[in-house]
């Protein structure tokens, strides 16, 4: 049994590990094999000396152990599914499964990019990279129910068929770092970038990988984004309301025209078929006619050769021009996707609710600096609110309140706290400050449920993405710091104090 640290600490700890990953276990199995079996003396001593540089007992140390070398070698010949993926075991930590349930002294086993198990005293077979996390606290990666991390926003205004994800800069390492420093690994990004209909918002993971796979879209069509223009002048806000209303009405008109077309087309085809049938009967005596050509025969616009009375002219109905914008709006009108109204002032929130009532939309209020003033209206319609508690833009609104979350919750409104336009660095702190009784659940399991992605993220359960954060202690307590962030089972970030190299 070999017991040697294999992973030499290298690279800049402040950089998300992306382009070059020093951990051989993150590469496909066959590519890793030579490294594993040919771990040289010098390699091992180098690794040892590296870890010796950090005598702090609290520092995480990684060791690699081949538990059953024979099995490991066998696995190279016959790749079994269990062995085909890299295994990472984070040991002896306090693990918070979903923001509420906390397991002391537990191990988290990651296989590939997924959570394989969370339990005490796990002892998986095969090759395992072990991380001793004694004293540390592990949570699922935090989820920001509305963020702007790595968003390169378009200039003011948008179109319903624009995608927020297209403005997401997956190479913005600085923005990724700020998110990881706050323990955030996933967020909802909005497409609203000015008054009016902005486009489709998405849920993204700050996932690893080279090139296009980095920044994983978890849910591309998460919501239709409409900005009610709370930051604008009153005239502009009125104009926005009417423009949005008109666009929704036009979408319905578009569907009506499509329905009409479908109806007309059906009638046309019916008539066509009838006529073809009639012609068939007429032409029945002519044996020379090839069969099969007849149904395709176009209707004769002019009088028949027989010299009979000309038939009524059959005109194919014109297909309406495809309107992609309207198609998106129709998905919202059909309640297929929710509509996120960005509205801070009470009047704008009421306007948003008016639109939701009129078009039967699944409304969500985003911003909501004055939502507490219209809490009863929101509760009555069961419309949730996403507050941006640290956001700078809503600070200009005088009637916002620090205890808005409590007021809304007491009124029966589902209220979420997110970072909004602010940095996600203090997401958890903002949620605590807003007075959420379950701050951790608020930005893990509850946020995942709210964004409709609970089957992929937000809890440390088998099969979920291995997106997790190792904190120096309970993150709810002051001074707790993010030590490491794993996304899809890969180390994305570690704090400077981790001794992660130069």
């Amino acid at each position: 049994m070999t017991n040697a640290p294999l992973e030499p600490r290298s690279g800049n700890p402040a950089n998300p590990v992306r382009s070059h990953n020093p951990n051989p276990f993150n590469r496909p199995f066959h590519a890793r094999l030579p490294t594993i079996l040919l771990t040289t003396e010098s390699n091992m001593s180098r690794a040892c000396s590296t870890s010796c540089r950090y005598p702090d007992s609290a520092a995480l140390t990684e060791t690699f152990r081949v538990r059953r070398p024979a099995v490991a070698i066998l696995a190279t010949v016959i790749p079994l599914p269990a062995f085909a993926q890299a295994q990472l075991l984070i040991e002896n930590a306090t693990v918070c499964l979903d923001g509420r349930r906390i397991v002391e002294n537990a191990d988290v086993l990651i296989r590939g990019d997924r959570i394989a198990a969370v339990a005490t005293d796990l002892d998986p077979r095969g090759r395992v990279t072990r991380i001793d996390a004694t004293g540390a606290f592990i949570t699922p990666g935090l989820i920001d129910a509305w963020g702007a991390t790595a968003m390169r926003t378009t200039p003011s205004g948008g179109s319903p068929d624009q995608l927020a994800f297209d403005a997401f800069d997956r190479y913005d390492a600085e923005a990724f770092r700020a998110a990881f420093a706050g323990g955030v690994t996933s967020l909802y990004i909005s497409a609203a970038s000015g008054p009016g209909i902005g486009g489709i918002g998405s849920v993204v993971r700050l996932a690893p990988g080279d090139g296009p796979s980095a920044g994983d879209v978890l849910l591309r069509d998460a919501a239709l984004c409409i900005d009610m223009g709370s930051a604008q002048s009153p005239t502009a806000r009125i104009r926005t309301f009417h423009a949005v209303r008109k666009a929704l009405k036009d979408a319905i008109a578009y569907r009506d025209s499509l329905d009409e077309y479908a109806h007309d087309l059906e009638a046309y085809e019916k008539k066509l078929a009838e006529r073809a049938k009639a012609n068939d009967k007429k032409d029945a005596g002519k044996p020379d006619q090839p069969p099969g050509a007849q149904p395709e025969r176009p209707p004769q616009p002019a009088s028949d050769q027989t010299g009979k009375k000309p038939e009524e002219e059959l005109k194919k109905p014109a297909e309406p021009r495809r309107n992609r914008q309207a198609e998106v709006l129709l998905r919202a009108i059909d309640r297929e996707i929710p509509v996120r109204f960005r509205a801070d002032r009470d009047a704008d929130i009421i306007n948003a609710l008016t639109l939701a009532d009129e078009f039967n939309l699944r409304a969500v209020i985003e911003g909501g600096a004055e939502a507490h003033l219209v809490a009863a209206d929101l509760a009555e319609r069961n419309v949730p609110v996403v507050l941006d508690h640290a956001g700078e833009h809503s600070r200009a609104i005088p009637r916002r309140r620090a205890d808005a979350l409590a007021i809304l919750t007491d009124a029966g409104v589902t209220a979420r706290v997110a970072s909004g336009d602010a940095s996600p660095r203090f997401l958890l702190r903002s949620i605590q400050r807003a007075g959420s009784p379950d701050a951790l659940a608020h930005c893990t399991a509850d946020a995942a449920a709210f964004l409709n992605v609970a089957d992929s993220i937000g809890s440390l359960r088998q099969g979920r993405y291995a997106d997790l954060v190792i904190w120096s202690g309970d993150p709810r307590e002051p001074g707790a710091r993010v030590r490491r962030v794993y996304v899809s089972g890969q180390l994305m970030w570690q704090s400077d104090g981790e001794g992660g190299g130069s």
Partner: protein
Amino acid sequence: MRRLTLQFAAVLAAATAAVAQERVIIASRTLMPDGSLVPGKAVVVTNGRISRLADAAEFDDRADVFRTDGVLSPGLIDCLSDIGARGHTASRIASVDPEPMAHEALDPHAQEVAEALRQGVTTLMLAPEPTSLIGGRCSVVRTRPYPHGRAEVLRTDAGQTLNMGEWAFSASREPSSRAGAMFMLRDLYDRVRRGERLPLIEKMYAGGPCIARCELGQDVSAVLRLFSGKRTSPVIVHSRDLVDVASEIAAFESMLIVGPISFNAGRRELAGIARAADTGVVIGFSAWGDPDADSLRRTAAAAADAGMTPDAARRALTSDAARIIGLHGTLGSIAPGQSADLVVFSHDPLRPDSRPLAVWVAGELVHAHTGNEAEELVDHLWNGGAK
């Protein structure tokens, strides 16, 4: 006559009892002068002062003790504030205007003063706005309501303000630039040395307290150089470039005021605060210009997350802040002899979800949060615990 004498005696006895009454508060944890939170402490308050700090066990069989699950902290201190005096404290015309005292502009009835008190901020150092190069003096005031509409001023000459930054420069008068500002400051020093009568400037250069607000890191360096070799170092007010100048501040043994830090602060600013804390500089926090009532504690929470130790962050809210405002022996710590400016928080004051439950100033209960625990608390303190 006899009846009257009896009545008088009764009143006297009651008054004496009230004055000498010992009140005991036992919180689940108590914030010590070193910034740590220690369980099992009893704080004994007599005549508006903390008379002693005892073991909680000593009071096990006493019923007239207030016990709480919260955390007992000294009243928080905002080291540089414009609360209650926004927009009224400085000239925009004169570049050297050392006379005004900030408390004279204070409106003690301002909503935000009461709000600060409810948030546990019992003491403020009010500073003039930074619109003059040398611009007025800071005053230390309490936030509690005071009779006759006056502010309760603890210190009137808490620091001469020196403002290095765009705020103090103007196109229409001197100085219009950093270079011009430095020229003026050196010129003032020379004039004082030549015997010109500029008492406040003389005092500032001769070791009087000085609060230097610096916009950029280079302003910090310039101010420190200006005072090098003189009898004192100014208190530096700066947050932006501490990554670069923290060690310089430490080398000059200056004290430092940072903040407000928002939850939207950048990585560089946060890293700078961590670095300053690492150097061991005495740090206090400021909520200058911040509209949030809990700004001071939010700043402390952000600093602790950035890497300042929680103990140091708690000191920066209390005892270290008292050092900066020059009242270290009087308030800011839970220690015998200190003014009983106390706050019970629901949790560690650094936790953003912690709420102030009760606030005392000089032993007087000035705010109690509505809620069961606080009501019980009011009962204990106003009725002496004798139900």
